[in-house]
């Protein structure tokens, strides 16, 4: 399976290097892909995987190095050139047009000028033959993330590529949808097509990939057959050291603990034509517990977080209660003053102001709640106190940085996230709500953040974590609820929860869903 008859690989990459400013994103990377193999590209966030495939697909130009296609040296100067060679790509952040229909989206990537009507029919036929049913006339903006991925895949297949690059394809799928995708990939391999499969999910790489190339800090650190490795040994290769395991001691008697965050029949109309309404959500988080909210992206999690944090106010003040006080009509600051803390999904631009220093970002979020500590007489900022607090947080969360008090944007994703979470933990909040706590964060920082959230709950706070990462939720939660199409299921105690049961709920299976009295979507 390593090379075909004449001994050449489909794709060979030698010494490919890409430099952004002072950062070497890819450092002399070598990669060989044979015909008819599924080749995994493994690495942590920031290891250079996306940069590498962008160079293979022509959206980035390498500083040096060579690419051989069928043994011939080629220069891939644009995505158009890549497509002509026979390279197709399914992007992690989809490159679809929301205001156009599925068929129009597909038509745009085909160069043969065939009329849209015939493309719709072709797309429909192909999608059913691969078991990825698709309605060509639906607007992309109305589709779920899983359905959008189908369009991306069909669009790619219609170009009859020799090599298909899939960038983190399962991060937006339920476990059942992922199984479907693997069947499709198996079939493509059987047809002799090659697949470059990018992922940080080790179990699925072990399951479907023939070979793997591991990247760390932009360099290739190893090639292996994933079937011969264990998940732990692959993780070691990716991270370069052992990852601290997260420890979660079970707690008893939670039912009797005081409810600190109560959400009662929370509903919200869709804010834009393409967004999800919230339907009658009820949930209680008690002192000492971590509740996780799972769900495929775009099922109302963002809307839910905005409503709980106070970025959007509720008509019914009793629909959000913090420490037994009605908070639905309160602003973010009002809710913070009741003892709650919030960490939004987007780090730069939402959780922190990118061009401001860490200490300034600390003041921005805490001047209202900790005014006495940070702001002196006449509204003068107490810079000494802020510096002390910022350094305290940096130390507590092990934030690594290049300057004493750098701009937020100068930190890596993981380190900034540690600071933002640490900034809220520093207040010892009695209610903590976090959206995607470790999205795009390296394994070491993720473990640190998860452990800190568990410890906060064990010290008597209520912690609510919204995440797309099921592994993470299983690691830290005492119970998991699932959000689907704007509805929230009843929390399932972790002892009863399995990937399969949660996955079914993520796909919209009803058992366990709370009563809602609305139409079944």
């Amino acid at each position, binding site marked *: 399976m390593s090379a075909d008859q004449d001994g050449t690989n489909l794709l060979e990459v030698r010494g490919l290097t890409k430099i952004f400013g002072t950062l070497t994103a890819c450092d002399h990377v070598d990669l060989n892909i044979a015909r008819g193999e599924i080749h995994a590209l493994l690495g942590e966030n920031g290891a250079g995987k996306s940069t590498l495939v962008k160079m293979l*697909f*022509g*959206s*980035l*130009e390498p500083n040096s190095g060579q690419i051989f296609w069928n043994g011939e040296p080629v220069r891939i100067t*644009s*995505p*158009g*050139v*890549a*497509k002509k060679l026979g390279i197709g*790509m399914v*992007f992690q952040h*989809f*490159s*679809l*047009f*929301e*205001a*156009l229909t599925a068929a*129009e*989206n597909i*038509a*745009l*990537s085909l160069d043969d*000028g065939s009329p*849209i009507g015939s493309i719709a029919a072709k797309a429909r036929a192909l999608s059913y033959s691969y078991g990825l049913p698709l309605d060509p006339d639906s*607007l992309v*903006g109305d589709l779920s993330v899983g359905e959008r991925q189908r369009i991306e895949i069909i669009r790619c297949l219609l170009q009859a590529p020799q090599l298909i690059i899939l960038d983190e394809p399962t991060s937006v799928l339920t476990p059942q949808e992922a199984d479907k995708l693997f069947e499709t990939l198996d079939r493509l391999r059987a047809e002799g097509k090659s697949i470059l499969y990018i992922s940080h999910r080790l179990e699925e790489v072990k399951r479907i990939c023939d070979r793997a190339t591991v990247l760390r800090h932009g360099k290739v650190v190893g090639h292996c057959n994933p079937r011969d490795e264990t998940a732990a040994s692959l993780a070691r290769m990716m991270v370069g050291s052992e990852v601290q395991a997260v420890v979660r001691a079970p707690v008893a008697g939670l039912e009797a603990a005081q409810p600190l965050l109560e959400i009662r029949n929370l509903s919200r109309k869709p804010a*834009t*034509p*393409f967004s999800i309404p919230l339907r009658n959500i009820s949930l209680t988080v008690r002192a000492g517990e971590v509740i996780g909210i799972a769900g495929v992206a775009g099922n109302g999690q963002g809307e839910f977080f905005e409503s709980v944090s106070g970025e959007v106010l509720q008509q019914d003040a009793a629909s959000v209660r913090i420490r037994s006080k009605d908070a639905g009509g309160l602003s973010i600051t009002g809710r913070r003053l009741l003892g709650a803390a919030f960490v939004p999904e987007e780090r730069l631009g939402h959780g922190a102001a990118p061009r401001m220093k860490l200490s300034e970002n600390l003041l921005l979020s805490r001047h209202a709640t900790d005014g006495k500590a940070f702001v002196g007489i006449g509204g003068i900022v107490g810079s000494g106190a802020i510096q002390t607090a910022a350094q305290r947080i940096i130390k507590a969360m092990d934030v690594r940085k290049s300057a004493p008090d750098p701009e937020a944007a100068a930190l890596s994703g993981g380190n900034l996230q540690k600071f933002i979470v640490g900034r809220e933990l520093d207040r010892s909040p009695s209610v903590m709500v976090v959206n995607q706590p470790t999205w795009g964060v390296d394994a070491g920082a993720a473990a640190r953040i998860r452990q800190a959230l568990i410890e906060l709950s064990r010290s008597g706070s209520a912690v609510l974590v919204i995440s797309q990462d099921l592994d993470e939720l299983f690691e830290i939660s005492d119970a998991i609820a699932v959000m689907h199409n704007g509805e929230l299921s009843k929390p399932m105690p972790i002892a009863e929860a399995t990937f399969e049961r949660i996955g079914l709920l993520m796909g919209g299976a009803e058992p366990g869903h709370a009563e809602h009295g609305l139409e079944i979507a």
Partner: protein
Amino acid sequence: MDIAVNILLTIATAATPLLIAAIGELVVERSGVLNLGVEGMMIMGAVGGFGAGYLTGSPWIGLLAAIAMGALFSLLFAVMTLSLATNQVATGLSLTLLGLGLSGMMGTNFVGQPGVRLPNLDIPGLTSFPVIGRLLFGQDPIFYISIALTAAVMWFLFKTRTGLTLRSIGDSHSSAHALGIRVIRYRYLSVIFGGACAGLAGGHLSLVYTPQWVENMTAGRGWIALALVVFASWRPWRVLAGAYIFGAVWIGQLHAQAFGIPVPSQVLSALPYLATVVVLVLISRNKRLTMMNTPASLGQPFVPDR
């Protein structure tokens, strides 16, 4: 009957420059570029058209010069915003200021000079037909161009593959780039098309509407065209409707003022704007349809990472 026909003809003359400039800007904005320089491109077209017509004595050469002047002037905007990725709002505003100033300077010697006028269509037997003869077969050539242009743009945007590509760039330029679509090239052509249209609209003013050169003779029509595009939610036939509503109320209030109706003239002068906004807002009530037609990447500079 003759009075009614005359009124209808003046409405068409008032609406035509708005329609042409707005249709051009609609294509530009559908590609995701916001060019606030319509007023400037229009006045450049007006001065260029008048000058060429006056110097050569041929209104047809004037017409071509107006188009070329608008297109050339928009090229300046295209180079700045597309190749150098400057802020589109600021660049568009300065284009307007530059155009107003530059046209005044270029036109110093044209002030008070007699201009040439594009002849109205005259088809023997048809044009003299009662009532509809003059409406259908007796107007100026730019009127017919404006109607044909609207139909052509509608067909191009929604029925052709190139039009689909243009709309997709307006929806998301990064997605379009990832598909291998040449975003910058499409935008250049769109901006130049918009410039040519604005120039033509300006030429209408100085070669048909009032065949002479007066400084600032566009009198804010470029801004009205810009507003029409937005209120018409980027749909060609609504731009047409908006331009004609504006033209009709404009002419209507002029007559009302002449009759001495006891309403302050300022209120009457405001009516065309008010009526156009109200009508277009009413027909754009469907939020979903508006969302679908709004170019999501409007005004954002596109810089592909390399």
